[in-house]
C-alpha cells in the first residue's frame, strides 16, 4: 500500500515537473575539462563517459529534457547561480561549504579518495607520511580543501592545477611528489603507460565527511524544489530498475554507488 502511494506521489511530482519543464530543456552543466572516465570528448567532439550516460539515464527516468552544456570547472557554480545552466552534474561532491551557495540532490556516486605518488618514494596517505613532500591537487575540489586542512601544515608545498590532467603530468615530470584525487580518476591515470611507469597508489586518506562531502550529487539552485524532486526521483529510478548497474558495468568492475 505504502509503495503504491509513493509511486503515485512520485508520478504526480514527475507529471508536475514534466509540465513545468516540458517547454524548455534543463541545461545540465558538465565540466569543460575532460575528467575520464566520467566525462571526456571523443575524436568527433561528442561527450562520452560514465557520467554523461548517467545524465541521459537520470533525465529520462525523471522525464526531463536535458541538454548538456560544458562550463569551465572553476566557474561552474557562478554559472549555475547566474542562470546560465540549471543543474551541475560534474562529479561535484556534496559539501557544507557548497551548500551555503547551492543545493544538492541525493548522491549518485561516492568513491574513496586516494593519494598517488612516485614509485620508490616512501610515503603514505597520512600527514606524517607526506611531511616535507610537494602535493598537487585540482583547484576548487574537495581534495584541495582536504589537502589544505590536513597536509598543508606539514607539506613542503601545495600546488593547485586547473585540471587533474595537469596535476598528473607534473607528477610524471617529478615536479610534485604526490597527488590526491578520486580513486576512479586516478585509476584511469595509473592505467596509462605513463602512469604505470612512474606511480602507484600510496593509500586511502582518512575520511572526513565535513570536507570530503557526502558523495557526488546534482548541484541545483537553492529553492528549486521541483527540479530537485525530479532529479531525486530519476536517481532512485535508475538505481531501482537496474539501469545504474548496467551503465556502471560498462566502466567499472564494481558499483561505485558507495555506502
Amino acid at each position, binding site marked *: 500500500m505504502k509503495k503504491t502511494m509513493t509511486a503515485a506521489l512520485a508520478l504526480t511530482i514527475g507529471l508536475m515537473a514534466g509540465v513545468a519543464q516540458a517547454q524548455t530543456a534543463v541545461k545540465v552543466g558538465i565540466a569543460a575539462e575532460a575528467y575520464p572516465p566520467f566525462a571526456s570528448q571523443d575524436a568527433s567532439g561528442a561527450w562520452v563517459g560514465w557520467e554523461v550516460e548517467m545524465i541521459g539515464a537520470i533525465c529520462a527516468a525523471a522525464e526531463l529534457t536535458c541538454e548538456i552544456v560544458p562550463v569551465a570547472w*572553476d566557474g561552474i557554480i*557562478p554559472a549555475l547561480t547566474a542562470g546560465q545552466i540549471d543543474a551541475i552534474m560534474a562529479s561535484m561532491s556534496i559539501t557544507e561549504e557548497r551548500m551555503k551557495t547551492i543545493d544538492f540532490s541525493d548522491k549518485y556516486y561516492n568513491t574513496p579518495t586516494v593519494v598517488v605518488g612516485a614509485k620508490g618514494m616512501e610515503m603514505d596517505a597520512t600527514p606524517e607520511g607526506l611531511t616535507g613532500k610537494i602535493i598537487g591537487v585540482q583547484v576548487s575540489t574537495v581534495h584541495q580543501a582536504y589537502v589544505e586542512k590536513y597536509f598543508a601544515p606539514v607539506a613542503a608545498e601545495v600546488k*593547485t*592545477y586547473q585540471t587533474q590532467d595537469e596535476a598528473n603530468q*607534473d607528477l610524471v*615530470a617529478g*615536479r610534485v611528489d604526490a597527488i590526491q584525487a578520486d580513486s576512479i580518476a586516478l585509476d584511469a591515470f595509473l592505467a596509462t603507460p605513463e602512469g604505470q611507469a612512474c606511480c602507484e597508489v600510496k593509500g586511502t586518506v582518512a575520511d572526513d565527511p565535513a570536507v570530503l562531502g557526502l558523495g557526488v550529487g546534482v548541484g541545483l539552485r537553492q529553492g528549486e524544489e521541483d527540479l530537485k524532486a525530479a532529479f531525486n526521483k530519476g536517481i532512485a529510478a535508475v538505481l531501482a530498475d537496474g539501469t545504474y548497474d548496467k551503465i556502471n558495468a560498462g566502466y567499472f568492475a564494481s558499483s561505485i554507488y558507495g555506502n
Partner: protein
Amino acid sequence: MRGAEMRDWLQPHRIFLGLLGLVIVLWCATQMRWDWLPKYAPLMAEGIWRTIWLLVLSVFFGMLLAIPLGLAQAAGPWYLATPARVFCTVIRGTPLLLQIWLLYYGLGSLFPQYPWIRESDLWPILRQAWPYALLALTLSYAGYEGEVMRGAFKSVPRGQLEAARAMGMPRHKILSRIWLPQAFRAVLPTLGGETVLQMKATPLVATITVVEIYAVASRVRQDTFIIYEPLLLLALVYLCLAGAIVFLFRQIEARGPQVRRPG
C-alpha cells in the same frame, strides 16, 4: 603663483569628473563584498611581489638579449643576422601561452628522464615553475625588443658613425658612446609601451602554477564564489603597476639630453 596654478587646474569639468570618480569608489567600497580581503591580503601581497619581480627580471634580461639581437640584425654579418631574424620572427609569430607551455610541459618534462639531472643540485630549482615562466617571458621580451632595437640602431645617422671612425674611435667605444645611447633614447617611449604590454602578459604564467596576482584573484573567486570584487581589485592593481611603469619611463626620458636630429 601657486594659487593661480591651482585655480587654473580646477576647471569645472575636472571637479565634476573627480567627484564622479569618488562616488564610484565609495559605492564600490560600501556596496560590494570585501569581507574576504583580510584573509587573502598576505597571499595578494605575495602575488603582487611575484608579478613585479617576474616583470622586472624579464624586462632586464630581455633587454640584455635584445641589444645584441638588434645589433646583429642592423649591422651584423649574415651568419649572425639570419639567426637573430629567425629568433625574432619565431617569438613574435607564436602565442606567448604556447611558448610558456612548450617550455614547461615540453622541455621541463624532459629533464626528469635523466637521473643525473634529477640528482643534481639544480633539480630543486628546475622542478619549480618560475624558472620556466621567467625564461619564457624573457625570450618573448627579447624577441619583440630585438626588432625594436634593430630599427633604433638603423635610425642613428650613419654620418655620425663614419665621423667617429674617421676620428679613430675604437669600435666598442663608438657603440657605447654614440650608437647605443642615441638608439636607446630614440626608442624609450616605445620601450615604455612594450613594458606595459609585458606586464599584461604576466597573468599567462598562472597557467603553469606560478601564483602571481592573477592566480591569487582566481583563487579568491574559486574559494568564495565572489566574482566581481577580486576582478575589480585585480584591474586596480594592474592599473597602478602600469601607472608606475609609465611614470618611471617618463623620469628616464626627462633625465637625459634631448635627441637632436638634423633636418
